[in-house]
């Protein structure tokens, strides 16, 4: 397959020596179906450039040819999808480490999720540390060293395979040795300290409150697409740090001129990284365009690597003489006070046109053509303040640096090096040492500030001259359709102009209107350039007058699989099962989830669908006997001398005078009078009640009770304990349930007189198990609930089945339960209510006064109609004294009269005359 962007007729672009690539380790890889060879140490991008491949797919909307533009995480163009199990889309060629057999396909802005399963393991780690340093460039290494020497725990995080940051791309010297030797020594010292942890291939993606950061570590991605046994593919670190030092570096900005998207137009710093770090020459004949000192090093390195530099175009009329002299000595023509006003070429840049600019950035004088296959551009430097901004730190526009720099911190964080606008090596080391020592000190570890070693090769830059919008040779901004502001979004100056003409002034509005900065790269490199264009079009003096957008996490795209970690499949959410669950499974139950509980929905026999099964189960409950696992109902022990008084306050009806071994239905409201929960509460002893709640609301009710007990009524001597899982509950239901009980507990008199409705008996079953049997009903049938310690649940269930077998006892599930209770008109809190239902409207939902009692728990039983609502005295909306909505306790469908306060009095009507329509008590 021929690649239209491949540049023919060129010698090999891999330099014969240098770089941090292993020439003894050639790696074969495939890109867009063509096979190539790279080296260990390459990224996919550097390997493609070494093969003369532009390395990006055509643009998303306009189909324009694009190429690799950067050497890092800010890359706007070079998106790929990597083949393999769990094929991952939207990866950057510039950050993807090459491995043997890598197979990638270029993407035009859109990837495809792999529908197959992802066999890799992703996991999480939680870590506390005194000092977290983000970025292992010179400033970050210095900070980690200073903090680490204090004995404080230090974590150093960097996204590259090895520390060094910008030093990897240059040839500076520190302490009299090559900078990377110094880096190696620092790394060795840090690694020897037990309290220091270095995480490479790890990106800090999010910075949250109280110095809580997420770090995504790539553990095996550089080895290949297949899972490595025993090692997670990626790991998400949750790190809590006393102090954070951000040494996140900076991104070189692109410039906005005609044709600035052509393959071969690259960041000057990226060109330098490809030459020095990867030993790749991205072009043979280059033009360098710069607004600042930094690109001079790129020009010199290109010449040293054997490329021709046709011209170095500096926007500044008077660049520093030393730099100009050095360039000219290397044979480079330096063109000052000028700019590239257009780049041209079919599939890639073939020529640029340059012209002088006046003080207002207007073209003056003649335009000149320069042939080239590489245009290295430095539009200035934007401190990487993304994490700083996520941590709520503010920025301000610095005119001397022409950049937004950190201003005020909102957390215990410092920011050093290029990330705060310090661009010289000595300044980065100074700032790093000082910040690291200070971070350790303020975390309680006295630390000295190490002396900054001698260093050379990267001096303090002079003032840049940004040109935010390079004018086109003709037309006006409305026609500049090839001046790209956001390459990934194909957004141009003409698009921004249209937004401004439509009346937009805010960067945030224009960003949303034009989609600038919203692609995968989130405008890391281009956002400030875009702000500059907006400023020009609005007539503002500087981007600082327009302002910047705020940054949100994640800093780089993060796979959902990593966020999920091991919490997927069965581990996604805890599953709760009852002691009787194995029986349900063995007998073909179809389950449904109720909260986290798995409950049998119905028990189909062979050939039955749900309707047939439910009809059969209902018939058994109505005409014979049926049995349900009711274990999942919430159960709360309410114990203490004031337990009765407490229940009086939390329920709308009274419990203090309930007889021991008797049960009462209660309804619970929130302070706003809305129904919150209901259930039957049983008094087990003078100072001991057992409250039941709806299945899904058990934890919420316990929280609610605790809240009122602790914060409003701390004087009450009551303790609450969840005992849901301590008791298994078997509900035996139906007109013949009494016969089953008789067989189970021969010694217990279960006659209506001896064991009336809403009472309980402590007894021992025939099989010797201690049990509490309650005569309460769920769905209006005669019913008994057998409560036993959980570990006897299955055995007791089986003995109930055995005892009922002669009577055709039928297990049933939640579906039948719903049919039974609905046919009786019993609503369920949370299913038939939605938090806007008062006891009063709830009661009205019943079809007759006798049935307005309701609920999963409420239940009058068929043998004793109309009983459950028998509340009388006080309590409800958390007052210790009567109030209106408190009186909802004995709700009636008839509003009698408004309270003096204006709220409805819901005391029982003298005569129960139903209203003609259901009014709202809150009007």
């Amino acid at each position, binding site marked *: 397959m021929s690649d239209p962007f491949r540049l023919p007729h060129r010698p090999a672009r891999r330099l014969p020596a240098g770089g941090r690539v292993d020439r003894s380790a050639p790696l074969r890889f495939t890109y867009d179906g063509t096979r190539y060879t790279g080296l260990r140490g390459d990224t996919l991008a550097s390997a493609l450039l070494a093969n003369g491949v532009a390395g990006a797919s055509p643009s998303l909307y306009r189909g324009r040819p694009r190429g690799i533009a950067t050497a890092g995480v800010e890359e706007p163009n070079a998106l790929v999808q990597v083949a393999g199990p769990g094929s991952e889309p939207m990866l950057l060629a510039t950050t993807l480490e090459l491995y043997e057999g890598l197979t990638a396909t270029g993407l035009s802005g859109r990837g495809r999720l792999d529908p197959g399963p992802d066999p890799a393991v992703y996991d999480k780690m939680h870590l506390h540390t005194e000092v977290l340093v983000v970025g292992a460039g010179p400033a970050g290494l210095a900070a980690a060293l200073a903090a680490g020497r204090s004995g404080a725990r230090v974590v150093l995080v960097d996204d590259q395979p090895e520390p060094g940051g910008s030093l990897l791309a240059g040839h500076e010297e520190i302490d009299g040795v090559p900078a990377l030797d110094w880096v190696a020594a620092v790394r060795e010292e840090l690694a020897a300290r037990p309290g220091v942890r270095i995480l490479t291939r790890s990106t800090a993606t999010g910075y949250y409150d109280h110095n809580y950061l997420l770090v995504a570590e790539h553990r095996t991605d550089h080895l290949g697409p297949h899972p490595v046994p025993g090692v997670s593919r990626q790991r998400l670190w949750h790190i809590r740090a006393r102090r954070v030092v951000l040494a996140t570096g900076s991104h070189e900005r692109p410039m906005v001129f005609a044709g600035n998207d052509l393959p071969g137009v690259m960041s000057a710093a990226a060109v330098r990284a490809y030459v020095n770090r990867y030993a790749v020459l991205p072009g043979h004949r280059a033009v360098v365009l710069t607004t600042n000192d930094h690109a001079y090093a790129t020009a010199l390195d290109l010449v040293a690597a054997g490329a021709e530099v046709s011209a170095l175009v500096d926007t500044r009329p008077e660049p520093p003489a030393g730099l100009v002299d050095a360039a000219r000595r290397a044979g480079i023509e330096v063109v000052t006070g000028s700019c590239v006003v257009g780049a041209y070429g079919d599939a890639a840049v073939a020529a640029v046109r340059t012209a002088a600019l006046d003080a207002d950035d207007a073209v003056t004088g003649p335009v000149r053509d320069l042939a080239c296959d590489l245009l290295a551009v430095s539009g200035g430097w934007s401190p990487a303040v993304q994490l700083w901004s996520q941590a709520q730190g503010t920025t301000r526009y610095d005119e001397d640096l022409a950049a937004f720099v950190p201003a005020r911190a909102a957390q215990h964080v410092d920011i050093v090096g290029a990330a705060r606008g310090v661009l010289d090596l000595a300044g980065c080391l100074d700032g790093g040492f000082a910040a690291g020592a200070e971070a350790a000190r303020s975390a309680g570890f006295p630390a000295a500030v190490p002396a900054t070693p001698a260093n050379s090769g990267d001096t303090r830059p002079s003032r840049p001259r940004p040109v935010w919008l390079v004018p086109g040779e003709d037309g006006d901004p409305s026609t500049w359709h090839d001046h790209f502001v956001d390459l990934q979004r194909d957004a141009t100056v003409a698009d921004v102009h249209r937004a401004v003409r439509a009346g937009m002034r805010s960067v945030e509005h224009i960003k949303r209107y034009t989609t600038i900065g919203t692609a995968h790269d989130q405008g890391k490199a281009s956002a400030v350039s875009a702000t500059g264009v907006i400023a020009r079009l609005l007539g503002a003096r500087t981007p600082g007058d327009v302002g910047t957008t705020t940054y949100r996490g994640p800093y780089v795209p993060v796979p959902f699989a990593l966020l999920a970690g091991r919490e997927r499949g069965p581990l996604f959410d805890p599953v709760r099962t009852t002691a009787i669950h194995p029986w349900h499974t063995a007998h073909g139950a179809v389950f449904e989830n109720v909260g986290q509980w798995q409950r049998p929905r119905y028990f189909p026999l062979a050939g039955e669908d749900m309707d047939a099964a439910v009809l059969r189960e209902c018939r058994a409950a109505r005409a014979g006997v049926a049995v349900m696992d009711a274990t999942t109902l919430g159960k709360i022990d309410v114990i203490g001398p004031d337990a009765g008084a407490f229940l009086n306050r939390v329920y709308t009806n009274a419990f203090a005078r309930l007889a021991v071994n008797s049960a009462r239905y209660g309804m619970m409201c929130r302070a706003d009078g809305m129904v919150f929960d209901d259930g039957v509460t049983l008094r087990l002893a003078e100072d001991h009640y057992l409250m039941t709640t709806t299945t899904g609301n058990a934890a919420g009710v316990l929280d609610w009770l*605790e809240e009122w007990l602790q914060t409003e009524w*701390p004087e009450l001597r009551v303790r609450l304990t969840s005992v849901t899982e301590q008791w298994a509950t078997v509900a035996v239901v139906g007109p013949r349930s009494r016969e089953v009980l008789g067989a189970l507990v021969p010694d217990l008199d279960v006659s209506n007189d001896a064991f009336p409705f809403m009472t309980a008996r402590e007894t021992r079953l025939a099989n010797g198990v201690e049990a509490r049997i309650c005569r309460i009903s769920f769905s209006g049938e005669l019913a008994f609930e057998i409560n036993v310690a959980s570990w006897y649940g299955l055995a007791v269930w089986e003995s109930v089945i055995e005892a009922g077998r002669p009577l055709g006892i039928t297990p049933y599930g939640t579906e039948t339960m719903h049919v039974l209770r609905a046919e009786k008109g019993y609503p369920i809190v949370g299913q038939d209510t939605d938090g806007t239902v008062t006891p009063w409207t709830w009661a009205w939902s019943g079809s007759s006064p006798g049935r307005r009692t309701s609920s999963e728990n409420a239940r009058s039983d068929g043998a004793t109609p109309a009983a459950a609502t028998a509340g009388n005295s006080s309590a409800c909306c958390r*007052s210790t004294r009567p109030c209106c909505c408190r009186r909802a306790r004995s709700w009636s469908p008839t509003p009698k009269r408004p309270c003096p*306060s204006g709220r409805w009095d819901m005391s029982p009507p003298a005569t129960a005359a139903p209203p003609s329509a259901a009014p709202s008590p809150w009007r």
Partner: protein
Amino acid sequence: MLLIACPWCGEREELEFHYGGQAHVAHPAEPEGLSDSQWGEYLFVRDNPKGPFAERWSHSAGCRRWFNVVRHTVTHEILAVYPAGQPKPVILP
């Protein structure tokens, strides 16, 4: 995610806690004496300051105790932690 110092357990992740809204909103002693708007104030109206704010937290996945926190609503800095029932500490602006 906040790091909250439970008065009983020490510093724990926010995940372990349950938020309880503004602190020091006492249940009215005599609700029946209140007008609708006064009752509505109690139920629904809370302060929303930009700055120190006294609020309730429960260590629901820990000791299950309720307590109070003064938190700066802009920076999330926690300025004070004190048991339920104690008066609001004086926080200097």
